[in-house]
């Protein structure tokens, strides 16, 4: 990296060479100025079957394509004359009725990849399907507007592409204390105790030290800030997503200056025996999210939180021989928040008679228009800079 760029991007830009006790100074760097809005992204990993989630219960083509695995009409929670929720999404019906949920159908991108890895990369980097970028869209947001690693948090042990920027990265943690503990149980803290600012230059070794200091500072911040927090909300047990969302609620309600949170629920790759499996997963999702929204409301933070849910792709319209579905293309995206501009169903479901060459739903809305809209209207930043391109603004918020 050029020296100038390094300085510009360094959290220490102003204090680097002038403050002797730089470790302390770093921990005190003043943040904010980015507004109070928070974004929570939930990835349903593995490719959730969107057609059995938001069901076209009046469409004969749907029932013809899925004789064994279609959701039957009498089990549907009706949303309008054409579409209905899978029965396990009942906890979300309340949100829907209050206008806190917007469902965007047929979201995808041109020349879709049907590989989990590739498509996840494409969604996380907001790239075209023939590009291989090494940064994620949230990482680039940090590059432009972030000051600290913990301004974007993934609830996990390792960092996904989405939170990696060119110069800055978000941070992954399982809980408010897991990083803090990790620092204390290794040689990490001891090494840092002996350091002075000599190593903090633009070279690679300086970068390692800087990253270590960032990690320490973020770990301490998360631990200290959440110390006194105590949630009264009950979360569903044996629900991995619920656990992650509980941690996120703890962070949000403790007043962290984190802007973006990332959570995920895996297991949606239902090639065989789909019905029971997806039912269980949707149950986990709906109950987890419902408790989360309850928690945020109780603490008056729902109004500043927007939750989006996506999956790297939808699944094939036609069921396969194993009572499951194979990898598909376009899928639905859920947007949850207060004061949504377009509540309920954002658009109609794509035609089931006009499918692509693989027999998958054609996309109508590029997922990057959703990102662009959220960046500009919700996080109030320059979406073009982050997405490297201008995308249409949608009007769901």
């Amino acid at each position, binding site marked *: *990296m050029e020296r100038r760029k390094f300085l510009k991007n360094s959290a220490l830009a102003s204090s680097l060479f002038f403050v002797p006790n730089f470790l302390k100074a770093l921990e005190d760097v003043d943040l904010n100025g980015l507004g109070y809005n928070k974004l929570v992204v939930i990835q349903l*990993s*593995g*490719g959730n079957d969107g057609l059995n989630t938001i069901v076209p219960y009046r469409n004969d083509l749907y029932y013809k394509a899925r004789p064994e695995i279609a959701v039957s009409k009498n089990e549907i929670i009706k949303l309008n004359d054409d579409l209905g929720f899978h029965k396990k999404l009942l906890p979300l019906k309340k949100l829907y009725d209050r206008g806190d949920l917007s469902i965007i159908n047929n979201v995808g991108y041109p020349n879709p990849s049907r590989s*989990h*890895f*590739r498509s996840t*990369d494409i969604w996380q980097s907001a790239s075209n399907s*023939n590009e*291989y970028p*090494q940064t994620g869209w949230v990482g680039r947001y940090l590059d432009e507007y972030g000051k600290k*690693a913990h301004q974007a948090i993934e609830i*996990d*042990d*390792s*960092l996904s592409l989405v939170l*990696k920027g060119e110069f800055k*990265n*978000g*941070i*992954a943690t*399982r809980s408010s204390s897991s*990083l803090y*503990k*990790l*620092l204390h*149980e*290794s*040689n*990490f803290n*001891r*090494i840092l105790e*002996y*350091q*002075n600012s*000599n*190593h903090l230059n633009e*070279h*690679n*070794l300086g*970068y*390692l030290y800087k*990253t*270590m200091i*960032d*990690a320490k500072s*973020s770990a301490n911040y998360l631990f200290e800030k959440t110390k006194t927090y105590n949630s009264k909300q009950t979360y569903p*047990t*044996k*629900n*991995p997503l619920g*656990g992650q969302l509980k941690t996120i609620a703890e962070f949000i309600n403790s007043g962290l200056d984190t802007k973006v949170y990332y959570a995920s*629920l*895996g*297991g949606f*790759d239902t090639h065989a025996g789909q019905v029971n499996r997806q039912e*269980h997963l949707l149950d*986990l999702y709906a109950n987890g999210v419902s408790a989360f929204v309850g928690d945020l409301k109780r603490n008056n933070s729902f109004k500043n939180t927007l939750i989006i849910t996506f999956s790297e792709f939808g699944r094939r319209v036609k069921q396969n*021989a*194993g009572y499951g579905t194979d990898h598909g293309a376009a899928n639905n995206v859920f947007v949850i928040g207060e004061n949504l501009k377009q509540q309920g169903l954002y658009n109609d479901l794509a035609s089931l008679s006009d499918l692509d060459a693989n027999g998958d739903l054609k996309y109508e809305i590029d997922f990057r228009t959703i990102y662009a809209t959220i960046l500009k209207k919700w996080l109030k930043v320059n979406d073009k800079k982050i997405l490297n391109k201008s995308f249409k603004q949608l009007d769901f918020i």
Partner: protein
Amino acid sequence: MNKKHILHLYWRAGFGLLPKQLDLLVGKSKEQIINDLFLESKKISPLRINTTGLDAFKEETIKKSPEVKKDYNILNANLMKKYNHIWVNRLATSKETLREKMTLFWANHFVAKDARIKNVEQYNNLLRKHALGDFRQFVKAVSKDSVMIQFLNLNQNNKSKPNENFARELMELFTLGTGHYSERDIKESARAFTGYRFNFKSQFVFNEKQHDSEIKTFFEEKGNFEGDQIIDIILKQKQCARFISEKIYKYFVSEDINVSHVNLMTEVFYKDYNIENLMRYIFGSDWFYNPENIGTKIKSPIELLVGIGRIIPIKFNKTNELLKIQTVLDQKLLYPANVAGWKGGRNWINTNSILVRIKLPTMLLEKESFTIQPKGNFTDKFKLVSVKNKYQEKLDVRVDWKSYQKAVKKVSSNDLIFSLILSEINLGTQNYLKTLGRLTKRKNLSKIMSLPEYQMC
């Protein structure tokens, strides 16, 4: 050749040296050391795995029966893990240091992956065979290998419906780099690669019926080209020699490209596209040993892990744990994220990976417990069933302390640090090291290897 320069050479051309190995080389001339380095890698030792368990599977039955296919896939997946394990072991123990380092490099250049072990084994050994050979033959061999044919959809490249995936990556990632060819060049060359197939024995098959034998225009040349001729035309472009030279410079010398050095390399490589000649030229150049190139590269996770193993032999009793470490550190051999490969350098480092990298030596050597879990696969169900928040694990490894202690028996603290750490050591770290007492003591090895300085090579 001075000690520092020998270490530098052996870190870039290999994975470091023990103090006693260093002592054996000191006093030899630069020429002799470099000659020996290449001599040691003259031999090609294929990395083999026993796949006889797969012999029972016949192509037709796999296609017909989903149950058989499932068994076939599971066996393949297990053998793949095992192959990863023996590859890591090979890197940590092989005497053909440079060939193995180059194989690792090419695996991240001609990036391809496959789930079938026999194909993967063949491809891995193809990389090893050509690692120091003729680049022209190398590219041609890669284009005809089953793993590449499958990975970049050459097997779907037909006369009537060309698939451009391979043709595009051939130029963008393998030979020229973006901006040095036109969309038309891609379309025309894709036609030349039509009909490339492979059989169940992983052998190349040229399907004439699917091959487009009409005239193609490629880089201003017209002809009834086949794939090999397209590769010849690409190699006529000096940009190809430059592109490879740049990539090799970044990997073996420095992330910061020095244009005049790369120019010199380009001239050398363009002459005959001989990889060994190019590497000899680099290691023989004075600029390779410039201070700004020594100890300034961030080790890849594999370099870190294998480098530790070269100092103190470590045996993983559970292959899955070795894979887990590679996953958490973002470099799992045989499972590249995408065709562009690992970017390397600072991309290895983020707030989380640095924590694991610093902790890794104590996890390995002190059996310190850890609570780091890799992300789940898309297909697995562990996230569904296990909601344990507190899992403390310890690696099941056997550390050969005896061999380490023998190796450092008469070594001074200074000499140990000198051979373990190539980068400059700042005052704070020097003070910290002073608190540790005699550094060759067993308990100090993980402390030295936990230093950020140890992350550099």
